[in-house]
């Protein structure tokens, strides 16, 4: 067994290789490294805290069970992100069938005013409610790109790597997603 002090410096790929062999300590380290990222990603895609928590846990279980299918020549994060995104898609489809996309099931507190921002107090609660609704009414792919750029603050190069798409596609997807979001917010305000 490797020394735990050294193991915290293991690369993601080394940890998944150990998980393939059934090493739960490697899984624990990977979980510690990415649990918040997994939760926030799922939260941005499904807009519900409880479900985002469950999805993030299920994503790590998938990593544990499917580690054998992981291609070690590829970076870990895009693979992990795809697992989370697929789980979110499935969850949203189920919810859509179950609730017929009723907005009441959304967690109204999944987006909150950033206390660190001094201008935050100037925003009316209605504007935030309108933003929440508009984001949850965006098609999945638009919500995804907005979540990555606006809320996770990722650069175009990072988004391109994560989604495995060209930089130009990131730019055009952002353009269309913003157009739709602005339109939905206008509709919601008016």
């Amino acid at each position: 067994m490797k020394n735990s002090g050294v193991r915290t410096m293991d690369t993601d790929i080394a940890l998944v290789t150990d998980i393939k062999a059934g090493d739960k300590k490697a899984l624990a380290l990977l979980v510690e490294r990415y649990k918040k990222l997994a939760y926030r990603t799922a939260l941005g895609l499904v807009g519900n805290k409880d479900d985002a928590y469950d999805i993030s846990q299920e994503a790590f279980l998938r990593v544990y069970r499917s580690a054998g299918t992981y291609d070690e020549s590829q970076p870990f994060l895009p693979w992990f992100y795809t697992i989370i995104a697929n789980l979110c898609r499935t969850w949203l489809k189920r919810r859509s069938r179950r609730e017929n996309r009723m907005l009441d099931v959304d967690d109204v507190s999944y987006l909150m005013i950033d206390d660190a921002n001094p201008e935050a107090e100037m925003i009316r609660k209605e504007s935030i409610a309108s933003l929440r609704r508009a984001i949850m009414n965006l098609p999945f792919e638009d919500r995804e790109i907005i979540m990555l750029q606006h809320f996770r603050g990722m650069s175009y190069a990072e988004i391109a790597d994560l989604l495995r798409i060209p930089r130009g596609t990131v730019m055009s997807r952002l353009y269309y997603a913003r157009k739709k979001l602005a339109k939905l917010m206008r509709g919601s305000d008016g």
Partner: protein
Amino acid sequence: MDKHLREMLAGYVDGELSGEERQAFEKELGENAELRAELEEFKRLKEVTGMVKYADLPEEVWESYWASLYRKTERGIGWIFLSIGAIILLGFGLYQGLSGMYTDPEVPLWMKIGVSGVGIGVIFLLVSYIRERLFAYNRERYREVTR
């Protein structure tokens, strides 16, 4: 608006353009009122989204995160063993119960046909369910690789 301008607009709002690209975009901006209106709209949007953040979970939830996940990994293993054991016991029980029934001349024919019908139905449903699960699994793996 053409595709290139749309891409440049997104890049301009996010400060992702090179110096040369930014200069070319600003030149176009001076001549294009529609582009200026969209730029303002996107800036407002960025301002609003910049003032909110995703709600975090309480620290105690994060502290117990691994313990909760660990229990789920154990439960998964438990279910696998339980399922295998149940299938073996059920299969053996059915074999013992049914093998005698088919050779027993005192069991009426309608009973044998009825039991056979139920058995065939269960097999069909089981095969259909397994096929569906395998199909879903393959599709998901495919997405993971090609995305």
